[in-house]
């Protein structure tokens, strides 16, 4: 339990921040185990009444779900309600219901047990799949099953919940999330789940703070405990001390005031006070994040991570499969731009299990892998090219360290275009190609690289790691992982200047782009595009709109003249406090 800290009565648990906001209130533990389906034999004469109970329960379940969907459609993006489709379709499954009825008659067992036994089979199959999406589907199946059983037992829909509460649960299904949101829900804390779980996506849409992946919160919290939930940092505190509460309440107040001011910023342009336009886009990995990015006012997608589709499967995805994913992203974002970063994986994801590298970060990664695996690269390039037809799409190459790699990638792109032309498939033949600058070699050769491509995008995470020669997951050296080290900042300046000399726009898609401390300096360095996680978009835009380009340049000059990270951080935080006193910096 290395994510738990205990100080007297106060217990702090670290999880994953899934939806921003701060909630303090009594806990309400929502347990799914209350639904029990014991096996009871029935008489042959009872079969028809047992089947009637089943049918009545299914009909009631359908009504419940229809209500939830109607409510959700009012309150949410229509796209978000599709999450509930699966459950409604299962209730309509004539074969499943027929099998359950036949089993009741043949085995002379009670309806709830047969429902439990039959549907559990499918749930087990889904849970055994090596795929997180299927695990989420298993929750849907579980939810439908519990709903039917509860209705057979004629129990009322949850909530004994009265007044306001922070919901604690092992897991939440989308339907739970929505039902609870009709009550006075302050926040959600769950043992399982990641930021991409459907419940997390829904809580963001509903603007209810949530922390997921807490692993053991249901075991540590007792009825009546007060919970303080911090959806910005992903921390839950049980029985918080007065001091903790005050700190959190101050933080909540700062964020609330700040967010109120941010609400009207979503529709405004990302430009400095003296009207220098900045492209502000989002980093996205899953389709579900696209609508959230749009709501947050993203101009486009500056980094679409594609490698997720390679994991948890046997064999490579087909061109059709990739195309379907890319097309749905470009459809949502059009007329704005989507930048697809081609598969950025280590060799271990591509080669057979025996493949081993002593030093994977210095090994077979990114473009190096793709140039060695032309079949995979061609398949992906064709899929992206097809998605570019009548849309604005760009391609970005990861882990480039030589100009030659760009030339080979360009050649591969031409081959893919020729194949599509031969097939008569439309695509954007003038598609923009760019390089993600994340190796010191690419930084040093940025000007030569810029003359070969249409744009550069700085990947600060890897760039910092390689410039500082530090693996940030290695605790012994982690303090040396300094994004604001002068060496890193000088590399960034070098890359931006080199790009501009070759009339190439320069963006940034690493973590630094979304760090409010860096914004003024980066604007001053002349960065053309910021690509950030959707949740910080309004905040970064607010900073951009507050500063003047002229002042930002002075800030950048001064920061670049400093010789230690500590000095630079201190200076930049005084700048931002001066510019936007209300900004709740989380330091």
């Amino acid at each position, binding site marked *: 339990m290395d994510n738990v800290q205990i100080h007297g009565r106060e217990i702090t648990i670290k999880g994953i921040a899934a939806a921003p906001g701060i909630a303090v209130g009594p806990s309400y533990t929502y347990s799914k185990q209350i639904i029990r389906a014991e096996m009871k034999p029935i008489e042959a004469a009872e079969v028809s009444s047992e089947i009637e109970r089943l049918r009545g329960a299914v009909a009631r379940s359908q009504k419940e779900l229809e209500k939830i969907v109607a409510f959700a459609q009012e309150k949410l993006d229509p796209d978000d309600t599709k999450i509930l489709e699966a459950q409604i379709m299962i209730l309509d499954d004539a074969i*499943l219901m027929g099998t359950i009825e036949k089993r009741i008659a043949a085995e002379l067992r009670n309806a709830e047990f047969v429902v439990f036994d039959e549907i559990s089979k499918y749930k087990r199959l889904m849970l055994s799949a090596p795929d997180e999406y299927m695990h989420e589907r298993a929750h849907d199946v579980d939810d439908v099953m519990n709903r039917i059983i509860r209705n057979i037992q004629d129990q009322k829909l949850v909530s004994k919940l009265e007044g306001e509460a922070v919901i604690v649960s092992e897991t939440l299904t989308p339907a739970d999330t929505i039902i609870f949101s009709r009550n006075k829900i302050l926040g959600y804390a769950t043992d399982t789940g990641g930021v991409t779980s459907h419940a997390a996506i829904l809580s963001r849409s509903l603007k209810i703070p949530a922390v997921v992946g807490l692993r053991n919160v249901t075991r540590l919290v007792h009825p009546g405990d007060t919970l303080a939930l911090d959806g910005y940092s992903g921390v839950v505190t049980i029985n918080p001390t007065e001091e903790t509460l005050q700190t959190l309440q101050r933080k909540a107040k700062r964020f609330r005031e700040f967010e109120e001011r941010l609400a009207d910023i979503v529709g405004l342009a990302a430009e400095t006070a003296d009207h220098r336009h900045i492209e502000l886009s989002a980093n996205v990995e899953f389709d579900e994040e696209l609508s959230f990015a749009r709501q947050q006012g993203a101009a486009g997608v500056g980094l679409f991570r594609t490698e997720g589709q390679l994991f948890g499967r046997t064999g490579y995805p087909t061109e059709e499969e990739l195309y379907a994913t890319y097309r749905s992203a470009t459809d949502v974002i059009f007329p704005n731009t989507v930048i697809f970063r081609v598969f950025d994986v280590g060799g271990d994801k591509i080669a057979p299990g025996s493949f081993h590298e002593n030093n994977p970060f210095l090994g077979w990664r990114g473009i190096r892998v793709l140039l060695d695996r032309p079949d995979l690269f061609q398949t992906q390039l064709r899929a992206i090219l097809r998605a570019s037809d009548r849309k604005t799409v760009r391609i970005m190459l990861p882990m480039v360290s030589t100009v030659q790699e760009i030339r080979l990638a360009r050649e591969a792109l031409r081959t893919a275009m020729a194949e599509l032309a031969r097939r008569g498939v439309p695509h954007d033949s003038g598609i923009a190609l760019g390089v993600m600058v994340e190796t010191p070699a690419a930084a040093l050769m940025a000007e030569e690289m810029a003359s070969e491509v249409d744009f550069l995008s700085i990947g600060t995470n890897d760039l910092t790691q390689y410039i500082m020669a530090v693996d940030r997951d290695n605790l012994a050296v982690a303090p040396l992982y300094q994004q604001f080290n002068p060496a890193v900042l000088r590399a960034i300046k070098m890359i931006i200047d080199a790009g501009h000399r070759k009339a190439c726009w320069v963006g940034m898609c690493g973590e630094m782009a979304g760090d409010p401390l860096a914004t003024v300096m980066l604007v001053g360095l002349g960065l053309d595009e910021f690509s950030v996680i959707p949740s910080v978009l309004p905040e970064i835009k607010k900073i951009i709109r507050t500063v003047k380009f002229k002042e930002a340049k002075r800030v950048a000059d001064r920061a670049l003249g400093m010789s230690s990270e500590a000095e630079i951080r201190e200076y930049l935080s005084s700048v931002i406090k001066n510019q936007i006193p209300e900004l709740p910096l989380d330091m």
Partner: protein
Amino acid sequence: MLTRTVTIQNRAGLHTRPAAAIVKTAARFQAEFTIIKDEFEINGKSIIGVMTLAAERGSTLELRFDGPDEEQAATAVVELFERGFDEE
């Protein structure tokens, strides 16, 4: 009885539409339709079953059709797989 072999090509399991398309197509025919994968046999006219099978993408499935219109049913279902479930 007819048997066919297909490979799941789309990002199945992610969304329910491919499963719904299979079930809807199969329902147009009288023939019984079974999908076999490893030791599992699933009724191809059941949405929950088909959703489960979609778990492993890129895997190969055996389709079995049995009934008076098995020929037509096989053609329609296999074609649906080959078209990638009309997802474009």
